[in-house]
């Protein structure tokens, strides 16, 4: 029953995407509203033109580089500090004010400083992305630990597992995993948003290429990179869903 419902659901999704593309294609071909947006079929020809000189793959590689470093640093730092705040009353007291002060600042507001500190460089882009990924991971790790049933710690202590290390390994990390994994997933999404924005400020990558293309009114090229980002995002998100499902079998 359940699998049948899932199949129907997937079918509806595929049909709706195809329908969307078909309507889009038809509307742009009739030239009713021109210039609206190039038809989806133009993405393929744009891809062939861009990739002829290897521009597409070079830009994707550059962006992926910024993305991976930024997300990695932001995620690791966020989770580490979130755990530290949840586990140590001293760190918790220290972070409270600072976090309240810094958290509302959107990652992009850091762009001027990123450029002053790191120049127009890979590092500047990674920094912006890292800030974006940092906060969501920080709060998910912190609240993930807070949400663990305190009685489990006492239960563990009565079974000889009351040491700091045993608590962290046997309760804190597995118990906060659902929240932490959800945080990583949102961080991956925020990362794609931030990488593009950072590159629009001139750091080489997909964002900068889109800026160039729009300057030359090459809307099909802009569209190509929009589609590229959408694909990357979807792939990351789907991978993360699979990983989470595998790690959180016990929730089912």
């Amino acid at each position, binding site marked *: 029953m359940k699998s049948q419902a899932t199949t129907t659901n997937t079918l509806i999704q595929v049909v709706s995407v195809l329908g969307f593309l078909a309507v889009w294609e038809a509307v742009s071909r009739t030239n009713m509203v021109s210039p609206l947006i190039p038809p989806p079929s133009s993405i393929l020809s744009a891809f062939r033109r861009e990739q002829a000189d290897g521009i597409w793959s070079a830009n994707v590689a550059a962006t992926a580089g910024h993305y991976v470093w930024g997300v990695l640093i932001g995620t690791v730092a966020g989770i580490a500090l979130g755990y530290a705040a949840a586990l140590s009353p001293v760190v918790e007291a220290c972070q409270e004010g600072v976090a309240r002060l810094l958290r509302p600042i959107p990652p992009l507001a850091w762009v001027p400083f990123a450029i002053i500190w790191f120049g127009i460089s890979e590092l500047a882009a990674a920094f912006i992305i890292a800030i974006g990924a940092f906060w969501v991971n920080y709060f998910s790790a912190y609240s993930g630990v807070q949400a663990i049933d305190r*009685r489990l710690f006492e239960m563990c202590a009565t*079974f000889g597992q009351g040491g700091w290390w045993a608590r962290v390994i046997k309760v804190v990390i*597995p118990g906060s995993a659902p929240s932490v994994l959800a945080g990583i997933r949102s961080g991956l999404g925020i990362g794609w948003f931030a990488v593009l924005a950072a590159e629009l400020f001139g750091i080489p990558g997909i964002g900068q290429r889109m800026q160039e293309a729009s300057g030359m009114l090459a809307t099909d090229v802009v569209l190509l990179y929009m589609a590229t980002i959408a694909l990357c995002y979807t792939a990351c998100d789907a991978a993360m869903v699979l990983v989470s499902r595998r790690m959180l079998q016990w*929730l089912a």
Partner: protein
Amino acid sequence: MARVNMLPQLPVVVELFDISLGYGRRAEPILTDVSFSVREGQFLVIVGPSGVGKSSLLRVVSGLVKPQKGDVYVQPQTRRESRSLGFVFQDPLLLPWRRVLTNVELGLEGLIASRAERRDRALEALSLVGLESHAGKWPNALSGGERQRVGIARALAVQPSLLLMDEPFGALDPGTREALQDELLGIWEKTRTSVMFITHDMNEATYLGDRVIVLGGKPATIVHDILVDEPRPRLRTRPAEGDFAGFLYKTFSSKR
């Protein structure tokens, strides 16, 4: 029924001396002058109204809570690869991210180095509660009664000298509760582990215990300490037992 001092003098597993308990160091005590010992193989039930500090007594024995006054003696564990105490809680408190088998292994970690040995001990404990076939399941996939059985297996796996049970069947439906009471008696007869069992249910106390300690009054203290020398298996419903439960009930209500 006879007085406690007629018990054969078996070694003491746990002894409490003049325990006073309260929330906080200087607060009014909720429990005063509680002294008793549990001897090897004994099934001791502590019964009293809720809020009287029964669970806190268990936490004093475990060392999780320091009493305002008094001392606790726990017989040192002499057997290798065992712990002195095995705990069973009202809410089984299984680790939901561990399968049944590794939940039962929890108390053996740091006690038995070999993974295979831990596994054997855990399976042995699971077979005592009849859940060997559930070893690979997640706690979320079990019923309430099965979860509590896993909790009991986890405590038995450390082969404790004393099993401490804090209203373990309080949250179960009546049918499951009776089934688990009988299972527990079966395990107790097989393993001869001493048990300190806490409940607020008088019928449960008289059905299970060799000896029933009744807490009551304000601040609470021991109002009755009764040896129940009725043969087992005991009947659940018969006039004598009804009378006894009624007697206990009256003592409680008059002392409160």
